[in-house]
């Protein structure tokens, strides 16, 4: 390598997320699931100890996956492997980086350890973070996140919160583009977001990083809905491996994500899919169980 070589630049970090666009990233807990996901056409897998639905059911503290599991998954597939670290847990993040994970999800699905998020610029590995609205997305980008996803409400099989977060994000981006230069500092104050990134979004009309949908996606139609709302791709957590026939459902969600505007295609891949994961009503959920309120 010559002297012009640089690793871990914004372009290199954000670039990997660009390559995942239009694809589906699936939660997996072991090598077998990772292979099923890869064969179904997943663009990446997310390695974790338990899928969000099981974390919900089990309660207690949810942590980074066992490094042995992460390594097993890395060795099983040729597609990128992501893994979750707890919000603010920069040591878990360093451990995952040292294992060779391709992306770290600083995730509200796990139990947060700090009110501060990880200083993501100090890492070579890129990070993805969840966001409920534009301000939260821009704060994470300010900390160095190279990819954003909606938070949704994970492990519920209920896409309503992901829809809410994406709609709010779109509305707020639209609003920013209508403001003049004299109004942007006030907008930054209102969004509680860094002014440089606010200016960038106001000028371009979009986030400077890729934005995926996550949290509650359980069916091919859910995936296509989020794509039509403007998401760049899809994370499926519990939706695949908590369903009746994971292999077939995984393929169907991949195809619905590619042909998200084609209702006839979505109908054909959705036909006879078997049991979807059991859903949870988010409205009647106690506030203490809402994962989306973790980290801000």
């Amino acid at each position, binding site marked *: 390598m010559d002297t012009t070589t*640089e690793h871990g630049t914004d372009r290199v970090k954000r670039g990997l997320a*660009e390559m995942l666009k239009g694809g589906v990233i699936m939660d997996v807990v072991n090598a077998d699931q990772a292979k099923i996901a890869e064969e179904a056409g997943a663009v990446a897998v997310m390695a974790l100890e338990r899928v969000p639905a099981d974390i919900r059911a089990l309660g207690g503290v949810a942590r980074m996956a066992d490094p042995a599991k992460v390594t097993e998954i890395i060795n099983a597939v040729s*597609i990128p492997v992501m893994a979750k670290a707890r919000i603010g847990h920069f040591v878990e993040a360093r451990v995952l980086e040292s294992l*060779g994970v391709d992306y770290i999800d600083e995730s509200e699905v796990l139990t947060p350890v700090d009110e501060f998020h990880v200083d993501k610029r100090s890492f070579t590995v890129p990070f993805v973070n969840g966001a409920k609205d534009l301000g939260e997305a821009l704060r994470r980008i300010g900390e160095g996140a190279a990819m954003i996803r909606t938070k949704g409400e994970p492990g519920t099989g209920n896409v309503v919160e992901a829809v809410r977060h994406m709609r709010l994000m779109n509305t707020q981006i639209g609003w920013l583009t209508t403001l003049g230069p004299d109004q942007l500092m006030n907008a930054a104050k209102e969004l509680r977001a860094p002014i440089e990134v606010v200016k960038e979004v106001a000028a371009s009309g979009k986030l400077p990083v890729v934005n995926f949908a996550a949290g509650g996606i359980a069916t091919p139609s859910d995936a296509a809905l989020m794509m039509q709302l403007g998401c760049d791709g899809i994370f499926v957590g519990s939706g695949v491996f908590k369903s009746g026939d994971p292999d077939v459902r995984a393929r169907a969600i991949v195809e619905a994500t590619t042909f998200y505007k084609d209702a006839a295609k979505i109908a054909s891949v959705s036909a006879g899919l078997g049991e979807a994961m059991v859903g949870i009503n988010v409205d009647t959920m106690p506030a203490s169980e809402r994962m989306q309120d973790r980290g801000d």
Partner: protein
Amino acid sequence: MKVGALALQGDFREHLAVVSRLGHDGVEVRTADEVAGVDALIIPGGESTTIGRLATIYGLMDPIRDRIAGGMPVFGTCAGMIFLASGTTGADQPQLGVLDVIVERNAFGRQVESFEADLRITGLSNPMRAVFIRAPWIEKVGADVEVLATVEAPDGGGEHAVVVRQDRILAASFHPELTADDRLHTMLIDLAEER
């Protein structure tokens, strides 16, 4: 001129933005009919296994092969290079097999080894800033393939081809679409205009 980008998965929009910047009509290609309607085709970066699988399901492999055999210029970047190639050093995956090279996937290592660097390319006067993301390199080059750029392996394992041309097939293992440097895209459009 109508330049298509295979829009099954990956960063096809960035490629189409370059095409528009160069004053041509950029179109998303997802069906055999759309393959038939373009003057040149770009295979974008993305996940090569995903792109290959979807192209197979949707019956695009033969239509694309036929157009390339008929002389349509094509440009593949990263996953696109893998998709055009005749084989990989690893497990089998769907490939067009129109470019006579064997590629090694993720040749530089995992994402922490991804990098950008200045790259000298035959036919271009100044170096290009090249963004390599979990990039492949070419392990074996066929007789009719012209090597336009090489990179030294990080472990000192010698030079490997990263930009190649075979007739009207152009392939790069990095992502010119992620920078403002349009010279390789211009090369593709020149190939189409020569026809």
